[in-house]
C-alpha cells in the first residue's frame, strides 16, 4: 500500500474528517459501512525535470460515500476533505491543490448510495 496515501488518510484522521463513523479506504472500495472515504491514486504526469532531479507530481481522487438518501452528508464530507487537503503538505509532498472548487456527484453506486468526488494534484518537496 502506498505510503503517501496512508499519510493522506492519517492527515484526514488528524483533522477529524476520517473518523470511526467515516472510515478511510485506500486503493479499493468496501461495501460497508455506507459512510466511507475512499482515496484513489490516479497517476499524474511524468516527473518534472529540474536541474539534476526529477520531481513527481502525483494526482489522486477522494470519494465520499453516504447512505441511500444522504447525498447532503456525502457532499459535506467531500467538502471537508477538500478544505482540509487543499494547500496541505503531507509526507514529502506539498502543494496539494484541489482541481475543483467544490465536490461533484459521481454516483450513485450500484447500491444506490450517493458518491461525491474531489480531485487533487500534489507536488514533491
Amino acid at each position, binding site marked *: 500500500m502506498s505510503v503517501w496515501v496512508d499519510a493522506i488518510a492519517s492527515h484526514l484522521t488528524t483533522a477529524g474528517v476520517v473518523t470511526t463513523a467515516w472510515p478511510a479506504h485506500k486503493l479499493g472500495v468496501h461495501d460497508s459501512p455506507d459512510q466511507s472515504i475512499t482515496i*484513489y491514486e*490516479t*497517476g499524474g*504526469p*511524468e516527473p518534472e525535470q529540474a536541474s539534476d532531479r526529477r520531481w513527481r507530481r502525483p*494526482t489522486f481522487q477522494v*470519494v465520499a460515500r453516504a447512505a441511500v438518501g444522504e447525498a447532503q452528508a456525502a457532499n459535506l464530507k467531500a467538502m471537508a476533505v477538500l478544505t482540509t487537503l487543499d494547500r496541505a503538505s503531507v509526507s514529502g509532498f506539498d502543494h496539494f491543490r484541489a482541481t475543483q472548487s467544490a465536490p461533484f456527484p*459521481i454516483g450513485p453506486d450500484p447500491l444506490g448510495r450517493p458518491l461525491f468526488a474531489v480531485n487533487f494534484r500534489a507536488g514533491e518537496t
Partner: protein
Amino acid sequence: MAILNIERVLDQLRRWGQGFFDGAAAAQVEEAKRVMLLARDVYCPIDTGALRGTALVTAELRELPLASADIRFGDGIDYAVFVHERLDLFHQPPTQAKFLQRAVDELSPQMTVRIGEGAVAAAKSRAGTT
C-alpha cells in the same frame, strides 16, 4: 551613423512577431487536437460509442497573443462525468476512467516545446528567413 533600410528591417520584425504569435496559436490548437485524438481513440471507454462521438475541440483566437483551445467530451450525455470519474468501474484496457486526464498528462510534458517550435517556424516563414 545611419541604418540603411530601417523601414524594411522594422517590417520584417513586425512580420516575424506576428508570425510567432500566429504560429503559437495554431500549434496550441494542434496540441488540443492531439490530446483529443489520444483520449478519443485510445483511452475513452466504448459501449455504444456515443461518448466517443462527442469528442470536440474548439479554438478561440482573440486579440494576439491570446488564444485558447478547449477539449470537450460528453455534451448531451449525462453519464459522461461518471465514466470519467468513477474509478471503481472496470473498463477493457487500454480504455479507462480518467481517459481525458490520462491523455493530457501523457502529452503535456512536451507540449510547450512543440508550441514553441511551431511559433518559431511560423515566424521564420512569415519573415522570409530560415
